[in-house]
């Protein structure tokens, strides 16, 4: 195990320690999938500093679904990037299943990501895109191919596996992206406005699918959305306002 990774920040106090459920000795319950304490993040813009996050606390248990809403520019994407270990907080602490957020190659096995604009690789067909996430971990074998096919079927793209992203509709692309996010059996799925680019009806069905799949596979879900109806379907509804979650 390497030393403290850059995005790991030692707990500031014993209070934080206890809140994080880390190092507490013999605890019967498993550690939460995601534990964040006092995360803060600011950006320099010119000679001013904007504090986007001012101490975010969040614990997500295995299989739990959480929605985060907030105004545009309130820092939802910033927060999700911190959760994903793509960016490091200025202060505060983050743990994945009780351990510090891991180096990038472990990220792929631990969490799945879904974005507003799909980010499918245009040269790969739907199946290739789904398999890409597992390919980065190790060259895929028969089991991975089977699982990819299964996931495609589950998201309703069984017949479209060999279509390029350009040949798929927006909803179909997001379904492929969801299948890609789930291929490595992650413990946590982070979705940043996954329906932002879809019409209402398509969006509704994508959310249904996402929630259904996560429940089925006991994958924890953090869903950033502007849509109150979608948020209402999650287990816990949170708001990001003035840099804190409430």
């Amino acid at each position, binding site marked *: 195990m390497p030393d403290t990774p850059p995005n790991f920040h030692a707990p500031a106090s014993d209070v934080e320690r206890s809140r994080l459920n880390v190092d507490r000795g013999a605890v019967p319950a498993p550690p939460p999938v995601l534990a964040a304490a006092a995360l803060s993040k600011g950006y320099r813009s010119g000679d001013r500093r904007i504090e986007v996050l001012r101490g975010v606390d969040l614990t997500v248990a295995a299989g739990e679904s959480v929605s985060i809403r907030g105004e545009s520019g309130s820092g939802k994407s910033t927060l999700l990037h911190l959760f994903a270990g793509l960016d490091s907080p200025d202060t505060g602490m983050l743990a994945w299943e009780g351990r510090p957020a891991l180096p990038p190659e472990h990220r792929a096995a631990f969490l799945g990501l879904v974005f507003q604009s799909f980010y499918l*690789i245009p040269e790969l067909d739907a199946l290739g895109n789904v398999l890409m996430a597992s390919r980065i971990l190790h060259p895929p074998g028969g089991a991975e191919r089977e699982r990819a096919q299964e996931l495609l079927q589950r998201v309703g793209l069984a017949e479209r596996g060999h279509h390029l992203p350009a040949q798929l509709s927006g909803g179909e692309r997001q379904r492929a992206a969801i299948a890609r996010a789930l291929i490595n059996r992650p413990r946590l799925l982070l979705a940043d406005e996954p329906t932002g680019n879809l019409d209402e009806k398509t969006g509704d069905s994508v959310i249904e699918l996402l929630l259904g799949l996560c429940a089925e596979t006991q994958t924890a879900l953090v869903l950033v959305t502007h849509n109150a109806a979608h948020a209402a379907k999650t287990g816990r509804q949170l708001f990001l306002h003035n840099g804190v979650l409430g």
Partner: protein
Amino acid sequence: MPWYLYLALKQLFPTGRRFPFFTAISVMGVALGVMVLVVVTSVMGGFGSEIRRMIVETQGEVQIKAQNPIDDYSAAIRLLDAQPDVAAATPISEGGVLVEHSKHVAYSFIQGMDLATVDSVFQLAKYIYEGSLDNLDDDSVILSSQLAAALAANVGDRIEVYSPLLIESLKSDTVVLPREVRVVALMEIGHQQLDSSRMYGTMRFVQGIYGLGHSVHGINVRLKPGTDEDAAAARLNAVLPGTLRAFSWQDSFQEFLWVLGLEKGMIFFLLLIIVVVAAFSVMSSLLISVVRKTREIGLLGALGGRPRQVAACFCAQGFIIGLSGTVLGLALGFALLAVRNDIVLGLARATQREEVLKRFYQFSQLPAHTLPGDVVEIVVFTLVISTLAGLIPAWRAARLKPVEALRNE
């Protein structure tokens, strides 16, 4: 296959697209460079080996020279004939003379040949385009085409030869008249330097005008086929008496060969620039691809791809383009070489210059000789330069931070 190589291949040859247009353009650029390099170095190599053939056929591969005229040359020839490397040997005498014909005067180099053995070493008959070697006797000569032109002399004409001996005799107040000889044949070897101002006569004739008595200036040697000339010269030097030294034709034509090599090197270097230009186009298309794919590259990082793997993905694309271009270029180059004579002949026919072509080159075929070393150099250079072309795009891609790349909407 690691994911970055897989992705590199997929980006160049996308699934389901029959003809990868962008890749084809980059590959074509590299292929054209390689093709031109292969064709030009082969044809230059062809001219080089033609020249080698001409020199060897008219001089032999090894020349034995001495400080002073060799008196007992038949003993030396017997010694040479006994050597395993030697196929045949013939004595020669040579020197400069002045020649005159109907008020035209020219300086010429004359070579005297032993008619009994000369055929086994030189293939002069092959280069005679008018008259015949059979008519050569002690009162006649063969002129090189350029000397014949300078003297306005033709077969059957009589020309006068002034030797240095004549000038010596003027000092001692005796009068020696120039030798009048007949022109029995004209010859052309096909190379400026070998054709310049030369004439050939019998051994007795040259011995006569030089006052050599029975001695000769040197012995030219033909080696058994496939013998390395320099090594053979060294072996001959070990057995020859100290007064005689063997020189390979490469030794004798050292400066000329150096100039030939320099010419080839310069042309090779200039043509390499084509490959460099092709590499720039590979680099620019890869850079465009990095900029266009910023978000996808960010996603690969988010999925766990490491920066150096992302870099390897783009370097590999440069390498694959280089490799495809090299293979295609070699194929095109060798195909072009295979039909080169049809092209040259077609051009000559179209411009009605077929005869000119034959007269100037002695061969109606464009020579080509591909050296494996040249091909290896071309392949290695192309692969290295096109992989390097992937390096700057790769570095740009590796520098992208996933967060920033993903925000780039």
